[in-house]
């Protein structure tokens, strides 16, 4: 197939969606920034952080967010609520809306004002006022007719001696401004004049004007309303003195916030420049199609490239002239996938997702979850369309021109890097720390992105080759549904759960899974971590469907007969070709992969049997609950079952040449189903299997109803979700290794192993087979959706008992800050009440020579006061320092007792009791004394 010139509009380039993503990002970042500004207006001294510190949270272990978790699960202590309500009132609900309104008003003013300013009198002159010879206006009319547009406003900037032109305006009122130099040169260089004006008209035709100036306007509004105030506030927070209580733990957060704003600025500029460069090339091509002179695009001077030239070009809104000239004749540039926009899309998406979530006001847990998911669905749209469109365009071009289609690996790596780095900047897991505890978890972004992009790329080729429609657009939309679901799942899961794994989950998985069983090996401890991931993934309703769709949907392509005539979309995409190519090619046969799948399933069944035999050796006797066994049984069986898809995927990736990920994944799915069927049979008949019996000794019988819920609901979902994802990773890894090996040792260039031309009966058999696999997979997925009957309560993350205490690694600085906060937000008042009022009053009321001389009524009123103080102290936070808390709680509980003893001694005239009370009182006073002595160094007062 000779290299063909492919119509650049065979599929949209996705630049409009990229603009929309940029606008959405700016609005979301504004909302998030504005909520921070609002918090500052109501709580300028960050008392909220102070309350949290006083409550004993340890920001150093990344657990300041523990407060959020606690409040999300309704576990906030009343003391914290009271402290927050008193010291850090929240801004009224409408203030955020008002802030967004202000942003939009300012943006609107810019959007309206920029064209007015550019087109003001004194700057430009209407063309008709200068057309002394009367030939300019008709020339413009002719060009407008060529472009089939409504006539825009033409003006001249007479002071500009350059030969440029520019277009600005707002919808329905576009202005093309011609440089004086261009107008003056019209006679000398009519084709040049025509080219420049047609290029500008193409900008109008392509809708570039509105969206470009909308971005400019929103960016400037963001700069004025959010960015500058935020930077000033953060800078002030960084240097101000009064903030010192939490300064050491607050500083990383402030610096990361500043970094994020800087990154956002860079992101906006780079993205906008990149989109504009792409739009320039489209405008060039349209101008060319309308009859512009290709000779007018200047030849670049061959000067030595300046240092950092390519870096500078990233910020320019126009591509280099050599690129523009080249793309006039060769459209390859337009169909390639560029790393920079891919990276930027990833970063923008993850920042957008986080900003949307963080700008939402606190709501009830259910509503919040729903909104989070809605946000994930929406944020997944731009990333899917942008990356999907880039891949689809590249692959359509490769298919039409006979080039090698991109694998999607590189795109995935760039996208994943964008997601990971954007995520890092967000700092939602490094709160109060310079680096997250487990940064390696961020690599999962790369893995997920690579799986999704490779899937998208291979599915795109599969669909493009078998598509018969008039245009490719519906095919692309169809092919992007599954990636969209995948991104929705990923963004939603990551926002709600995944991010926690980076900071270290504040949840005691070992206790959750193992309960009372404490003595176990480190392998079991590691297994709890694995089970934690599986549990949180399964808690997400999307997970099963997304993975099942990813391995099942591509199989449909094997059930469709390939087109035998050149489809209409190919003719439209290759307008100049006399003999357009037939993109269809026979698909690789599914028989070998299915055989591998059966083998993999068998391997999985053997692994299951081995695990059962192992478990048989230490099964607990009947009526004995062994938490360790109850955990080990399902988790080891899950690992054994996962052997099937992983082995099948690896082996299939080795034997297939085309659509490796799709075929390997389908084989993995089938293998999982086979292994599961075998395991279910083993489980339902295990009482008859002797050494494989994992239950308490019982008689041999067939018990499917007992085995089913365990296998279908506890074991199958993790295998179908995370297990199959892992299988995909393994398949991609094997494929990459093969490619590397081929680089050194050129492969035998045997063509694909095509399935023979199938007769009608074969097609029917094929379709029945694929339908059977589909029904089985969907059936198992449905069965797995049902909630787990057992053990859910224990691994329920809303159970605050299982939150790991943060007292493990409290540094002296944090302890100091905690104690200081404890004092500031109420502790000092309580201690003062005891030292200055309650204790002196009690002493005064109880001082006497003997018990009978004490006035019981006086002591009684003091006791009432002391009890009142006790209630206040109990409703306040305990002292953050555990050692001091012991003394403190002694004072709180003993003083009322002492007072009661004095009162009783006075009433009864009991001198012995009076003596005891005096001694007890001395103990309490001594306790208080030592407490204050220790508190002073502890709090640095």
């Amino acid at each position, binding site marked *: 197939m000779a290299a063909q010139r492919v119509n650049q509009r065979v599929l949209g380039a996705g630049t409009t969606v990229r603009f929309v993503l940029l606008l959405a990002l700016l609005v979301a970042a504004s909302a998030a920034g504005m909520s921070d500004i609002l918090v500052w207006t109501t709580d300028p001294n960050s008392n909220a952080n102070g309350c949290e510190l006083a409550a004993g949270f340890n920001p150093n272990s990344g657990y300041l967010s523990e407060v959020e978790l606690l409040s999300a699960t309704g576990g906030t202590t009343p003391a914290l609520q009271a402290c927050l309500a008193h010291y850090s009132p929240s801004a009224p609900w409408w203030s955020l809306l008002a802030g967004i309104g202000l942003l939009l008003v300012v943006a609107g003013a810019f959007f309206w004002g920029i064209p007015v300013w550019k087109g003001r009198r004194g700057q430009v002159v209407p063309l008709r006022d200068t057309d002394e010879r009367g030939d300019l206006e008709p020339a413009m009319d002719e060009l407008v007719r060529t472009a089939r547009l409504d006539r825009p406003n033409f003006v001249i900037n007479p002071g500009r*001696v*350059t030969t440029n032109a520019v277009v600005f305006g707002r919808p329905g009122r576009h202005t093309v401004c011609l440089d004086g130099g261009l107008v003056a040169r019209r006679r000398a260089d009519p084709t040049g004049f025509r080219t420049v004006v047609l290029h500008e008209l193409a900008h109008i035709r392509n809708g570039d004007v509105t969206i470009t100036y909308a971005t400019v306007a929103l960016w400037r509004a963001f700069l004025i309303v959010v960015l500058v105030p935020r930077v000033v506030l953060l800078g002030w927070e960084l240097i101000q003195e009064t903030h010192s209580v939490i300064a050491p733990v607050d500083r990383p957060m402030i610096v990361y916030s500043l970094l994020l704003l800087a990154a956002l600025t860079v992101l906006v500029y780079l993205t906008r420049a990149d989109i504009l460069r792409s739009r320039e090339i489209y405008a060039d091509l349209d101008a060319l199609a309308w009859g512009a002179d290709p000779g007018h695009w200047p030849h670049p001077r061959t000067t030595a490239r300046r240092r950092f030239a390519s870096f500078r070009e990233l910020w320019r809104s126009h591509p280099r002239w050599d690129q523009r000239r080249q793309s006039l004749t060769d459209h390859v540039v337009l169909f390639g996938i560029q790393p920079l926009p891919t990276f930027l899309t990833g970063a923008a998406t993850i920042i957008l997702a986080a900003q949307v979530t963080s700008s939402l006001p606190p709501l009830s847990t259910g509503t919040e979850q729903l909104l989070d998911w809605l946000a994930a669905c929406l944020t997944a749209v731009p990333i899917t369309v942008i990356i999907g469109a880039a891949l689809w365009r590249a692959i359509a071009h490769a298919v039409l021109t006979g080039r090698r289609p991109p694998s999607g690996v590189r795109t995935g790596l760039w996208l994943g890097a964008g997601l990971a780095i954007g995520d890092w900047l967000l700092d939602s897991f490094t709160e109060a720390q310079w680096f997250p505890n487990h940064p390696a978890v961020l690599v999962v972004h790369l893995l997920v992105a690579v799986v999704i992009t490779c899937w998208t790329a291979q599915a795109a080729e599969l669909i493009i080759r078998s598509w018969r429609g008039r245009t490719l657009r519906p095919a692309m939309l169809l092919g992007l549904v599954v990636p969209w679901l995948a991104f929705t799942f990923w963004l939603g899961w990551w926002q709600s759960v995944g991010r926690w794994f980076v900071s270290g989950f504040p949840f005691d998985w070992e206790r959750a899974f193992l309960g009372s069983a404490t003595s176990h090996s480190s392998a079991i401890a590691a297994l709890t971590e694995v089970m934690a991931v599986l549990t949180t993934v399964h808690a997400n309703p999307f997970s099963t469907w997304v993975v099942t769709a990813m391995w099942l949907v591509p199989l449909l392509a094997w059930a469709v007969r390939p087109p035998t005539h050149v489809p209409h979309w190919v003719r439209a995409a290759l307008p100049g070709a006399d003999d357009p190519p037939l993109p269809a090619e026979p698909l690789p046969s599914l028989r070998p992969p299915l055989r591998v799948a059966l083998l993999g399933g068998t391997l999985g069944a053997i692994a299951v049997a081995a695990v059962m035999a192992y478990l048989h050796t230490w099964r607990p006797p009947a009526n004995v609950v062994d938490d360790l066994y109850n955990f080990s049984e399902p988790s080891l069986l899950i690992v054994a079952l996962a052997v099937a898809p992983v082995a099948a995927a690896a082996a299939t990736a080795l034997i297939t040449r085309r659509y490796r990920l799709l075929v390997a994944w389908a084989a993995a799915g089938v293998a999982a189903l086979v292994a599961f069927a075998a395991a279910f049979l083993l489980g339902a008949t295990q009482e008859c299997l002797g050494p494989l019996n994992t239950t308490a000794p019982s008689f041999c019988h067939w018990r499917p109803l007992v085995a089913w819920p365990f296998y279908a609901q506890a074991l199958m979902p993790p295998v179908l979700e995370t297990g199959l994802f892992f299988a995909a990773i393994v398949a991609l890894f094997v494929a990459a290794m093969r490619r590397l090996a081929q680089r050194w040792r050129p492969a035998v260039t045997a063509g694909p192993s095509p399935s023979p031309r199938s007769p009608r009966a074969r097609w029917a058999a094929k379709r029945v087979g694929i339908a059977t696999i589909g029904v089985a997979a969907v059936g198992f997925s449905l069965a797995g959706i049902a909630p787990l009957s057992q053990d859910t309560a224990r691994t329920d993350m809303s159970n605050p008992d299982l939150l790991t205490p943060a007292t493990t690694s409290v540094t002296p600085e944090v302890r100091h800050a905690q104690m200081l906060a404890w004092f500031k937000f109420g502790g000092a008042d309580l201690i003062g009440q005891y030292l200055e009022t309650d204790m002196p009053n009690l002493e005064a009321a109880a001082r006497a020579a003997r018990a009978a001389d004490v006035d019981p009524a006086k002591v009684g009123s003091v006791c009432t006061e002391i009890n009142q103080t006790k209630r206040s102290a109990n409703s306040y936070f305990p002292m953050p320092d555990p050692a001091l808390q012991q003394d403190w709680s002694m004072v709180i509980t003993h003083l009322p007792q002492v007072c009661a003893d004095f009162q009783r001694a006075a009433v009864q005239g009991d001198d012995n009791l009076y003596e005891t009370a005096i001694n007890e009182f001395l103990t309490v006073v001594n306790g208080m004394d030592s407490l204050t002595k220790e508190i002073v160094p502890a709090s640095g007062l």
Partner: protein
Amino acid sequence: VIEMAEYGATRCTVREVVHDVVADVAPEELPVLAGLSQLDDDEALRRLTRRRRPRERLGFGLDTVATLATAITWVAVQESVKRIVDPAADGLSRRVGTRLRRLFRRPSAPAIVPVLTREQLTEVHRRVVEVADQNGLDADRATVLADRVVARLVLTALDTERPGER
């Protein structure tokens, strides 16, 4: 040249001189001149000599400077006239005045071309050639342009003054 009769014995402005020269040597530049005529002299000169050229979003991207007879003539004549009329006012006070006028949007009155001596005319000629050279006009055409400018200025002088005085 044809319109010369209209000016008759009245004194003539810089822009009129430029208009006549451009209409003669580069009539295709007349729309530009018409645009410039709507600005005051200082503003026009400022625009024509502006170094910084912003890169416009959605422009074609060409920043090639066109060699315009209009620009060359305007810059050379106006600068020469300024220097001849008020040689001292080239410094700070003039610049401040220009700034203030721009701030308050007060157009300055169009500069009047005085009657020039032979030396002054030679100086204008030299200046036109110099500016033309800076703008990349070839030497022959630069000389033609300078000749035209001087011719137009001489015509003004002839019209303004009584014959026989010189």
